[in-house]
């Protein structure tokens, strides 16, 4: 079995458009949440969102390459460019070596809706243009990036709701560990536009604390009232230890554990037992006891029920001493991207010896009072870090990274 290491990372999110900006936000507890006028116009119950600018890729890609990119695939290009740079990789490496891609994504609503609008208005399918189909499929990120970077290894998308990005990393980890691939580009992407979130908003699970957007997302806090949708993309370069050392790459961390489970119950309600199984499976695979974990990056999205159930699961596995925070307090819920972006956030914390705060944690409830929630940025040496991601349908994923 090969050891799997992380040698590159890139991020494009509402708390920063690159690693440097994101590190600054994480260290200083800066929120990326604001009011979206487009959501207001469309009659959303909650106008809160973690918005990101659509990047201009003219300098990076030609017309044909840009023509097939969905919104989230554009974010993925920016994150991947940064990841390749940190990993010291370029196209010439992919020409000589079989490198794969596995990305988490579970919608491309804007592209689908705009195509249908055109067909309905013009009564002609040709007039949607040639790029539409490649923007509309859930695999829009992997199909575009695989052709842009001329990748010749594994190539698919993982759709697993809000655990998509985490499972994508987990699947890449398994393939490299088993010796089937030497290097894989992994990550997660999430569109931010209102078309993607209307039906989610309709469930009434988004925060309505619009008077102070930066205080709206408050995981584990007694007065939390819902999540805030956001997006962007995060990319990691993972490879076998042998591959990394052979090319003299800088190892950012080792990926040592991947756990998963399905609750087998309700489509939207979480369950403690399923989450506990996922976390324990990751710990077992990593050969670590819960007492050896220095920090847990919680899935906690700021919903009353979700945070309570995860709090109970964390209490059951880790007790009350292990430091925990939810970076979603600053980023909002990056959904399909979250499992990947939160590994980037954990790597930045590990590299810079701190725990990013769970901002807006002012008053605990009966569950979070039994946990060690880190409300303010704290200096800490992080050797082993757990990251949780849970999604609709009861899909759970847990990743563990280790300082090398």
């Amino acid at each position, binding site marked *: 079995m090969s050891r799997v290491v992380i040698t590159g990372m890139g991020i494009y999110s509402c708390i920063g458009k690159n690693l440097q900006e994101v590190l600054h936000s994480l260290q200083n507890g800066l929120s990326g949440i604001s009011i979206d006028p487009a959501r207001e116009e469309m009659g959303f119950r909650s106008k809160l969102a973690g918005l990101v600018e659509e990047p201009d890729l003219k300098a990076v890609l*030609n*017309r*044909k390459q840009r*023509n097939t990119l969905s919104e989230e695939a554009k974010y993925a290009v920016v994150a991947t460019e940064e990841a390749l740079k940190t990993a010291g990789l370029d196209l010439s490496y992919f020409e000589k070596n079989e490198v794969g891609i596995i990305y988490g994504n579970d919608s491309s609503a804007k592209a689908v809706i705009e195509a249908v609008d055109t067909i309905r208005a*013009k009564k*002609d399918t*040709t*007039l*949607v*243009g*040639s*790029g539409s189909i490649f923007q509309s499929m859930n695999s829009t990120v992997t199909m575009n990036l695989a052709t842009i970077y001329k990748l010749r290894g594994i190539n698919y998308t993982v759709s697993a709701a809000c655990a998509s990005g985490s499972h994508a990393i987990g699947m890449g980890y398994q393939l490299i560990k088993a010796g089937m691939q030497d290097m894989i580009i992994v990550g997660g992407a999430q569109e931010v536009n209102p078309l993607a979130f209307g039906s989610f908003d309709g469930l009434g699970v988004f925060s309505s604390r619009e008077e102070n957007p930066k205080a709206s997302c408050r995981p584990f806090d007694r007065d939390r009232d819902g999540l805030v949708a956001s997006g962007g993309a995060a990319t990691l370069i993972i490879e076998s230890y042998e591959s990394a050392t052979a090319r003299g790459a800088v190892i950012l961390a080792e990926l040592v554990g991947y756990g998963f489970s399905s609750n087998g119950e309700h489509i939207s309600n979480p369950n403690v037992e399923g989450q506990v199984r996922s976390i324990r499976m990751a710990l077992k695979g990593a050969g670590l006891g819960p007492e050896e974990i220095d920090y847990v990056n919680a899935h906690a999205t700021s919903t009353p029920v979700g945070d309570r159930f995860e709090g109970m699961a964390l209490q059951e596995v880790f007790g009350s001493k292990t430091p925990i925070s939810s970076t979603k307090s600053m980023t909002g819920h990056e959904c399909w991207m979250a499992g990947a972006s939160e590994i980037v956030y954990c790597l930045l914390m590990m590299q810079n010896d701190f725990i990013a705060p769970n901002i807006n944690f002012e008053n605990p409830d009966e569950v979070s009072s039994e946990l060690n929630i880190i409300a303010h940025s704290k200096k800490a040496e992080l050797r082993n870090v757990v990251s949780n991601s849970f999604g609709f349908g009861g899909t759970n994923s847990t990743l563990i990274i280790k300082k090398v």
Partner: protein
Amino acid sequence: MTKETVIDRINSFLVEEFEVDESVIVPNASLKDTLELDSLDYVDLVVVIENNFGFKVTGEDFKAVTTYQDFYDLIFDKVSAE
């Protein structure tokens, strides 16, 4: 609409949408080679023509088009017939 107006409009959207350098647009040059057209690009040509002139050209129409001059003639004939 005069033929000059049609040509100006075509050249303008080719530069804008297809990002072709204006200097390569000469009447006898090959449309396919200079724009590096593949099967997907012909779909996008149909879309820009519809957006700019309000009618749809077909794959059959493109069979007679090799040069820019052929392309201008095709569009001008259709504009005149409208």
